[in-house]
């Protein structure tokens, strides 16, 4: 049976990793390639690198970084942040990225999903959805959760799947940065509504949270950042605990 995946997420600005709490108050946690290599060695199953540079220069630095990551890292990695065209994605693919994650740009232009999956295959396209619960309905947001959209989570995720997304990366903006766990009921409903894998993101504060979202939440993968970057939960400890709880993860 295919293993549940553990995915550290590295936010990158100007070539270095940072992690924000609610995307502000950034704290530098080190060199992006070295940190990724360390996670890979420790048993991470994939990596996600998100470019949060706001400048042209920062974006160029990121493409160079992707090339360095591809040379060094021997597990799959996804890159995201500011990808809004076929050309942006092609540049990152050429640099060695295995997948791209698109978010606000897909909401603005859903046809981008079709375009990317037609050109590069659906395994290349991760659609990230940052959603918040508003009056009992989960609505997608854009620009790091700061702007509302008219897309409802479930119908948008299904549309993304039909357009050719290979995976959905779902972040609850109500849970992200809180360290109180993932919204497992919503995750389970989303997983059963889709045929493609889903990655749960945002809110992990403990091993129990990750175990819960991979079992009760039916997520195919769990993504987290600060609990790994802070060294609080080393990946080997996490995986050992998950295996002891009967969750099917790749042993190290």
């Amino acid at each position, binding site marked *: *049976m*295919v*293993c*549940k*995946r553990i995915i550290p997420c590295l936010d990158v600005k100007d070539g270095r990793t940072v992690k924000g709490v609610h995307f502000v108050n950034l704290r530098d946690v080190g060199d992006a390639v070295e940190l990724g290599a360390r996670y*890979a060695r420790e048993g991470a*199953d994939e990596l996600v690198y998100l470019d949060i540079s706001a400048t042209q220069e920062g974006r160029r630095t990121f493409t160079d970084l992707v090339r360095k990551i*591809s*040379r*060094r890292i*021997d*597990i*799959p990695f996804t890159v995201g942040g500011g990808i809004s065209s076929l050309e942006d994605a092609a540049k990152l*693919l*050429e*640099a*060695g*990225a*295995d997948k791209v994650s698109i978010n606000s740009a897909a909401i603005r232009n859903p046809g981008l999903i079709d375009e990317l999956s037609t*050109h*590069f*295959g*659906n*395994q*290349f396209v991760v659609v990230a959805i940052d959603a918040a619960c508003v009056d009992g309905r989960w609505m997608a947001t854009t620009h790091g959760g700061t702007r509302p959209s008219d897309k409802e989570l479930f119908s948008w995720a299904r549309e993304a799947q039909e357009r050719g997304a*290979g*995976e959905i990366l779902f972040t609850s903006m109500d849970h992200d940065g809180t360290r109180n766990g993932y919204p497992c009921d919503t995750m389970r409903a989303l*997983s*059963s509504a*889709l*045929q*493609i*894998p889903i990655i749960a993101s945002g809110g992990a504060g403990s091993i129990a949270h990750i175990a819960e979202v991979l079992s009760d939440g*039916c997520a*195919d*993968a769990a993504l987290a950042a600060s609990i790994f970057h802070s060294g609080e939960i080393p990946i080997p400890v996490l995986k050992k605990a998950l295996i002891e709880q009967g969750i099917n993860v*790749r*042993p190290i």
Partner: protein
Amino acid sequence: MIAVIEYDAGNIRSVIHALERLDAGDVCLTSDPAVIREAGRVILPGVGDASVVLESLRRAGLADLVCGLTQPVLGICAGMQILCSHTEEGDADGLGIFRTRVRRFRPEDPSLKVPHMGWNELRSMKGPLFEGLPEPSYTYFVHSFYAEPCEDTIALCTHGVPFSAALRRGNFFGTQFHPEKSGPAGAAILANFLKI
């Protein structure tokens, strides 16, 4: 010299980087028939639609050339599927090296996702490609189509149904998983291929 056959699309860079990490010597990304014929090893990488890869190979006039190669050849993912007799993806005839057909995953269990994406177990591993590796070993898969088990199968994996994780006939090898993305296990498999 290792020739990595160049197609129209897909992440070919990662295969080259994996070979560089192994200090595998000269690696040449090429569609030049003379270079491919002379290479000590040939790799058919593969990301994306197998029927598109087949079409691109035929258009470049490389299909017959590949079938006639006598040095060790490794097809990866879609690069393995095109070496099978037929694929449901685009209902296309393959190059017919491996005596098996490629079908689409249609899991009855709704909890099984398509694409089959992530790390999974290799079982019934045999032959020089897996020398020194423990069973099960874990490698990284990402695919929606699979090769049925057959007499050429040298490793099995399961996603609802058992399928060929690796195939071999004579000097032709194929892996459904991506050794270039499978950590130390994948590196060992690539290193074994280079020693064959």
